[in-house]
C-alpha cells in the first residue's frame, strides 16, 4: 500500500447479518413512537429569542435593517465604507449633504438577490447603522421587490445579528 490507506479489520466472523438487521428494525420501530421534531411552520413560528430545537442563532445573518436615531432618521452618515467592503457589490450609495454639513444618503439601496449575507457591512459600519437581521421570511411576489431602499431598510423591525458570540468574541 503505497499511500498508506488504513484498512480496517472488520469483525466478519462475529457479525450476523440477520440479527443485525433485526436489531436495526427494533431501533426504527422504537423511533415511530418518539415525539416528533417537525415544526408546523405557518402555525408555529420561531422567534429570535426562542429557545429549544426551533431557535435561530443570534448570529444568524439575514436580510438587512437600517437603524434609526431618535428623530426616526437613519443613522447612516454616507461614509461609503459598506459599498467599499461589500464583496458582492450589492449596496448602492449616493451621498448627500445638508445645510449644516451633515452627510446623509440620498440613495441607499441593497440588492438582496446579490447579497451573500457575509455581514461585513455591519462589521465595518462606524455608526452602527446598517445591520444584518435575524430574519428569514423574505418571500415577495416580484423580483423587483428585492431591492430594498432606505425607507424599507429603516422600517424593518426584526432583531439584528450579533455577528459573533458575545461570550467568545474572538472565536476561541
Amino acid at each position, binding site marked *: 500500500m503505497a499511500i498508506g490507506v*488504513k484498512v480496517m479489520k472488520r469483525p466478519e466472523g462475529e457479525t450476523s*447479518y440477520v*440479527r443485525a438487521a433485526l436489531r436495526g428494525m427494533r431501533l426504527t420501530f422504537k*423511533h415511530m413512537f418518539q415525539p416528533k421534531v*417537525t415544526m*408546523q411552520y405557518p402555525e408555529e413560528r420561531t422567534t429570535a429569542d426562542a429557545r429549544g430545537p426551533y431557535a435561530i442563532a443570534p448570529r444568524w445573518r439575514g436580510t438587512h435593517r437600517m437603524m434609526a436615531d431618535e428623530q426616526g432618521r437613519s443613522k447612516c452618515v454616507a461614509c461609503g465604507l459598506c459599498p467599499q467592503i461589500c464583496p458582492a457589490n450589492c449596496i448602492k450609495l449616493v451621498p448627500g449633504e445638508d445645510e449644516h454639513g451633515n452627510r446623509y444618503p440620498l440613495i441607499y439601496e441593497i440588492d438582496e438577490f446579490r447579497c451573500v449575507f457575509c455581514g461585513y457591512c455591519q462589521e465595518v459600519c462606524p455608526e452602527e447603522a446598517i445591520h444584518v437581521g435575524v430574519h428569514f421570511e423574505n418571500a415577495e411576489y416580484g423580483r423587483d421587490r428585492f431591492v430594498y431602499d432606505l425607507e424599507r431598510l429603516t422600517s424593518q423591525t426584526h432583531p439584528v445579528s450579533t455577528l459573533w458570540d458575545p461570550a467568545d468574541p474572538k472565536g476561541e
Partner: protein
Amino acid sequence: MTPEMKGFLLLAVLKMVVVFTVVMVGVALLTLMERKVSAWMQNRRGPNRVGFAGLLQPAADGVKNIVKEETYPAEANSFLFILAPALAFIPAMCLSAVIPWAAPVDISLDRTLPLLGHVRYDGRMAMAVADLPIGFLFVLAVSSLGVYGIALAGWSSNSKYSLLGGLRSSAQMISYEVAMGMSLIPLLILVGNASFGDVIKAQQDGLWFILPLTLSFFVFLVAGFAETNRLPFDLPEAESELIAGYHTEYSAMKFSLFFIAEYANMVTVSAMLATLFFGGWDIPGTSWDQNGSTLAAVATGAAMFLKTFFFLFFFMWIRWTLPRFRYDQLMALGWKFLIPLALVYLMIIAVAVWILEAVVGIADPKIKALILFGMNAVMCYVVFFILDRGTLVSGSYRRQVPANVGS
C-alpha cells in the same frame, strides 16, 4: 348466451372492477403510508397538509402528475419509451387477479336484470377474480414479465443511467426468480397442488407454513424484496449512483405508472406471503369460515387484509432500516446463498416428507407439520446463528485486503 354464462361473466366483471379499484386506491394510499411511516421512523410528521392528516395527499399527487408536462428525451426510441411503463404496469395489475382475498361464498343468483336479461349463478364463488388451478405458478410467470417494462424503459430512454438501471434490474430479477421459484417447491411437496385454495386448505389442516417451512419463507421474503426492487435491493433505482435508474427520463403520468407498478407488486408479494405462509384468509383455530356464508367472507377478508397490511408495513419498515447492498453483494447473496440454501432445504424437506409418509407412515397433517416444525427450528438455528456469521452478505473486501495490512 345461457343464463349461467351471463351470471358467471357478470360476477367476474364485478370482481374485476372491485379488485382493480381496491388495488388502485390501495396503491395510492400506500404511497401516503410510505411517506408517513418513513417520517415517523425519522421522528418527523410526514405529509399532513392536504385533507385530514394528509389523507388527500395521493389525490393531490395524482392531479399533479396528470397535468404535468410529459418530456421525451432526444433520440429516445419513442415507441418503446411509451410502451415500457405500460409493460411494467399491466403484469403488476394482472397479478392481483389470482389472489384469493377471502373465503369462498355461496351465491344463488337467479333473476332478470335490465340490459342483461336472465342471469343465473349457483354454487360457491371463489373470492378471487380468476381462481386459477395453476395458482402461484401464474404469479411467478407473470411477475417476471415486469422486467420487460423496466429493461425496455432503461434501454429506450437513450440515457446511460437508465440503461444501467435497466440492466441491473434484469440481472437482479432473473437471479432472484430462481431462488423464489425454488423456495416454493417445498410448499408444493407438502400441498401437492399449486392452487391457492389447496395451499390454504393444507394450512388449515396442518399448521401455517411459516412454522414447518420457515427457511422457505425466508428465501421467498428476500427474493420478494428483490423482485419488487425495494430497498435493500433497489439497485435499479439507486439514487446515489444512478439518479433514478430506469425511470430517470420519465415524467408525469408515465413515471407514476412505474410507481404504481412497484406498489402493486408490493401488494401482490405481501398477499402471496400472507397466503402461502400465513394461512391466507384463514383465521387460526376456526373452521366455520369454510361454510360459504357472507359473514365468513367478510371476517376472512379482514384477516387477509390484516396479514397483507402487516407485510406491506414490513416492506416499509425494512426500507427505512437497511442500507442498500452493493451490487456484488446482491449477486453473491442471490447466487451463493439463497439458491444453494433453497436447494438444500428442498432436498431436506423432500427426504423428510418421504420418511414421514412412506417409511413411518404418519397420515395426520398436524403431526406431520409439528415434526417438520421441530426439524425446522434446528435448521433455522444453524442458518441464522452459525452459517450466517460473515457469510450472508460477504464483502468484497475479503479479496482486497492485502497481506501487509498496516505496514
